[in-house]
Every structure is written in structure tokens, then in C-alpha cells.
């Protein structure tokens, strides 16, 4: 598979949308693994990095879920291609900036990706649309076991899987859920939620991980610690935290409707109007407007059938995807024009909001 055909294919993130993905858009688990006898990528010399990449890519490409996958050296990818992979959560920003000897292997359906020579020799990732921690774990666990049959992992009975950074020791697992939490943001409760989640040993980040902002009211919640608990225990704890966040978001929606439905309807209606008529939209504003339309879908203002369009636009509004679609590189001001034009055309025939259809309890 080539990078061009991968970019042209729909991704798990955008095309599996249903009301099951209302609040948890996506579940993702990654495992950090290293070879026992090689220095970690950050300390390895160029020749060692090349050797590590050869060993790892051969093993990964032979694994069943990655047959006929995209298998490419990062330095062979263009800037725009890398940016698109980052926007689809298939590679990290760190990998996209990495030098010689880094590879990425991505499955045809874009649910499995393996980064070679990122911070660790292997960063295995599986993502699924919706709230599916168990299923995602089963898939990645099986892939990991398959790889271990041919790769000698660095492992210590007391410290678990050995990783370049001691914060990933033990299971080497980071499980995360991408959540759409507009009502908690509108009612200014996010700060409180972040604090509570932190106290439970979980981390809240923006859409694109560390340091990114939370435009579009999309957050990533993941486990912080990896040592001292089994994978199942971590997933169980994360699941209960996520369930309680979902609960809070649904309550917040209910409260917003009870307290001042007019204000909420106004936000959603204006978002629709701007989408149809604006001529300049930066990505942050576009994300925030799409978030309101998505909330409208959850509430029944727009039909559920339009959900996948919105989830696709969340991705297409990103700078990499936007420029790729327009076949060129554009500066931010030009991008704002192009983004607005794209959204105008998408919303030209988008069904009008109908506020009489609202679900009285805000749940669907």
C-alpha cells in the first residue's frame, strides 16, 4: 500500500461514526516495546538505528493485521503527508520530526499503526471508533504476543517492559479515550473535571496530545502510571473514570437545557449560520463550530445520519488535510479562506436545524 492510497482511503476515525460514538469518539491503546540488546533510539548511533529498524519492520510487516500495510521510512514522507498522519492520530509529532532510521507501518484499515524508532524501538497502537477499551486491548494484546514470538523484548521480572523513559515502565501501556465534552466546557466545569481526573491517576490532554489546546471541546483522557498494576486493572480504572465523565457530560447537557435552552439553541443555530456563510475560519474556530453542530446532533436538532459528515469535517478542517485537498501549500491566512469555502460548500445542503425535535432529557 502507498501513502497516497492510504490518505485517499477513509479512516476509522471518520467513517465508523454512529450514536454509539456520541461522547467517546475514539479509543486508543499504545504499547511501548524495546529490543533487549539494542540501545534505545535516542541514544543509538545511526548504524544501530538502521539495524533496529530492519529487525523491527521485518517482524511487524509479517504480523497478520499488518499484511499489505503501508510500510515506509519517515524520511521518505513529505511534510504534508506526515502532517496528515499526525492529524489522523496514526503517527506522533515526535516521529514526524525524527531523523534517519524511523519507520511507520500502518494497516490498510488505519486501525493499527506501529512506529519504529520513535522514543522506543516499537510503539504499537490500535485505535477503534467509540468506547471500546476491551476490544482494543484484545486486538493489541494479540498483535504484541505475535511480535514477541520473533522479537526478544527488553523485559525485567520486577520492572516489566523496559522503556527509554521510566514513566512508561511496567506495562508500557497508555490507553486513552478521545471525548467530546461540549456541555462541560460551556458550563465551565472542565477545570474541575481535569483536577478530579488527575487525582485518580489519569491525565487530560487536548486533541493532539501534550501541549495541544482543546478546541472543539475534544479531550484525550489516558492513564498516567504504567507500573504496579496489570493492564486489566489499568483499563478497569480508566473505564470507570470515563463512565463517570460521560455521566457528568450528560448531566451538564440536561442542566443547560433546563436552565437556558434558548442560549444553547442560539449557539447551535449561530454555528450553523456561520458554517453556511463565513469566508474566513481558522482551525480553532472551525473546530468549535463543528463541536456545536455535533452537540446538536446528539440533542436531536440534526439527524444522526449527519454525524459522520461532521466527524469527517473535524479532520478535513485540519491544516494538513486542507492543504492536501487543495493540492498545495498555503499560508495560514489563505488556509482560513479555503477552510471557510470548504465548510460553506459542505453546509450549503446540510439539513436545517429543527429545535422542536430536541430530546427533553438531553440523552440519546
Amino acid at each position, binding site marked *: 500500500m502507498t501513502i497516497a492510497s492510504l490518505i485517499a482511503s477513509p479512516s476509522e476515525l471518520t467513517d465508523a461514526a454512529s450514536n454509539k460514538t456520541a461522547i467517546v469518539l475514539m479509543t486508543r491503546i499504545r504499547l511501548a516495546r524495546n529490543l533487549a540488546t539494542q540501545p534505545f533510539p535516542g541514544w543509538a548511533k545511526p548504524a544501530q538505528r538502521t539495524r533496529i529498524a530492519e529487525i523491527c519492520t521485518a517482524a511487524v510487516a509479517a504480523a497478520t493485521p499488518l499484511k499489505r500495510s503501508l510500510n515506509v521510512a519517515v524520511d521518505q514522507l513529505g511534510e504534508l503527508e506526515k502532517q496528515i498522519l499526525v492529524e489522523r492520530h496514526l503517527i506522533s509529532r515526535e516521529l514526524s520530526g525524527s531523523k534517519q532510521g524511523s519507520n511507520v507501518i500502518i494497516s490498510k484499515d488505519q486501525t493499527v499503526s506501529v512506529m519504529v524508532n520513535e522514543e522506543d524501538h516499537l510503539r504499537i497502537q490500535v485505535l477503534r471508533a467509540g468506547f471500546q477499551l476491551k476490544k482494543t486491548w484484545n486486538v493489541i494484546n494479540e498483535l504484541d504476543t505475535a511480535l514477541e514470538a520473533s522479537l526478544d523484548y527488553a*523485559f525485567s521480572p520486577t520492572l516489566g517492559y*523496559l522503556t527509554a523513559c521510566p514513566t512508561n515502565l511496567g506495562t508500557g501501556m497508555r490507553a486513552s479515550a478521545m471525548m467530546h465534552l461540549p456541555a462541560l466546557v460551556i458550563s465551565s466545569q472542565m477545570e474541575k473535571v481535569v483536577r478530579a481526573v488527575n487525582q485518580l491517576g489519569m491525565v487530560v490532554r487536548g486533541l493532539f496530545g501534550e501541549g495541544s489546546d482543546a478546541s472543539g471541546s475534544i479531550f484525550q483522557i489516558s492513564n498516567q502510571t504504567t*507500573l*504496579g*498494576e496489570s493492564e486489566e486493572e489499568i483499563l478497569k480504572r480508566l473505564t470507570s473514570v470515563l463512565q463517570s465523565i460521560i455521566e457528568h457530560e450528560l448531566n451538564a447537557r440536561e442542566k443547560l437545557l433546563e436552565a437556558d435552552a434558548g442560549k444553547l439553541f442560539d449557539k447551535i443555530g449561530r454555528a450553523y449560520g456561520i458554517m453556511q456563510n463565513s469566508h474566513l475560519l481558522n482551525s480553532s474556530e472551525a473546530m468549535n463550530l463543528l463541536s456545536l453542530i455535533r452537540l446538536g446532533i446528539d440533542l436531536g436538532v440534526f439527524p444522526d445520519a449527519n454525524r459522520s459528515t461532521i466527524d469527517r469535517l473535524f479532520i478535513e478542517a485540519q491544516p494538513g488535510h486542507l492543504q492536501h485537498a487543495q493540492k498545495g501549500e498555503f499560508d495560514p491566512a489563505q488556509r482560513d479562506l479555503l477552510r471557510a469555502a470548504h465548510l460553506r460548500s459542505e453546509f450549503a445542503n446540510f439539513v436545517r436545524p429543527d429545535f422542536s425535535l430536541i430530546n427533553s432529557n438531553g440523552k440519546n
Partner: protein
Amino acid sequence: MANPLKCDLCDKPATVHLTQIVSNKVHKVDLCEACAQAKGVTDPSGFSLSDLLLKASLNPEAAPGAMRCESCGFTQADFKKHGRFGCPACYDAFKGMLEPMLDGMHKGTKHTGKIPQAALARQSLHERLSKLELDLSDAIKSERYEDAARTRDEISQVKQATHQSPPR
């Protein structure tokens, strides 16, 4: 592979090695060319080794006793700089500083999750094989031919088992 000695003051390879006896104690200093020049070690009119030793001990990251991974040459100073380790063996080399760090970082300090069964089984087979090969050469050397024959059979059994597991 033996790692070359590193300069006591910086991380470059040491090329100047000094031994001095001061009040009945032997002091050794290893320096690189540049530091030796800078400290006047190459100046025959004399320099104070004790000054140099004191300075080195005040700079704990470069002190002779600082932790260093024999396998990849990573030092404690490197860890302070990068916040990442050099290779899996560093976890042994830096054991001392690791435990207090992990205590605050994680839920516990002992792994209770998944174990790479296949990789570990393969590893123990290899360890067994090298031990048997050692036994074999010992038996031959001391002319215990019955032992040698038995060990040889055992080796071929283990080898067969290794071949049955997937290729490395």
C-alpha cells in the same frame, strides 16, 4: 568490549592518566587532552592534584564514582540531561537512583502485568544451551567422555526445541 576511560572533568575519552601519592594514599586522575591542558597537568612546573580531585568531587556528575552504564556508556549526567535512558541495561546500572524515582512516579514499583512468555522461554533455552556447551568442553578437557556424550545428546535435544520455535 572495554569502554575507554572517560575524562574526570568532562565526557571525552581520557588520554592523560596520572597517579600521585599524597600522604600515603594513591590518587588516580584520568583526563582528556583539553582538560589536562587547561588544568596545567602537562606543565612540568607543577600543579596541585588535590585541587583537581576536589573539583572533580564537587562536580558529582563527573565524579569518578558517578553511575555509568557499562553496556552503552550512558552516564547519570546524560540521564539528567535527556530524562531518558540509553539502553535496557541502564536499568541495572542506575538501580540506585531508580527506586526512589519510581516510587513517586507510579502506582507501585513492581510489575504485575503481562509477561512475554515466548521471548522469556526462548531466552532460557539459550542460557541452558550455552551452559551445556560449557559443560561439554569441560567434560572433554577432563576426559569424562561418558558425561560428554550425555551432554552432547542434551544439546541436540535443546537445539531441536529451539528450532521448533519461530525464527528469531
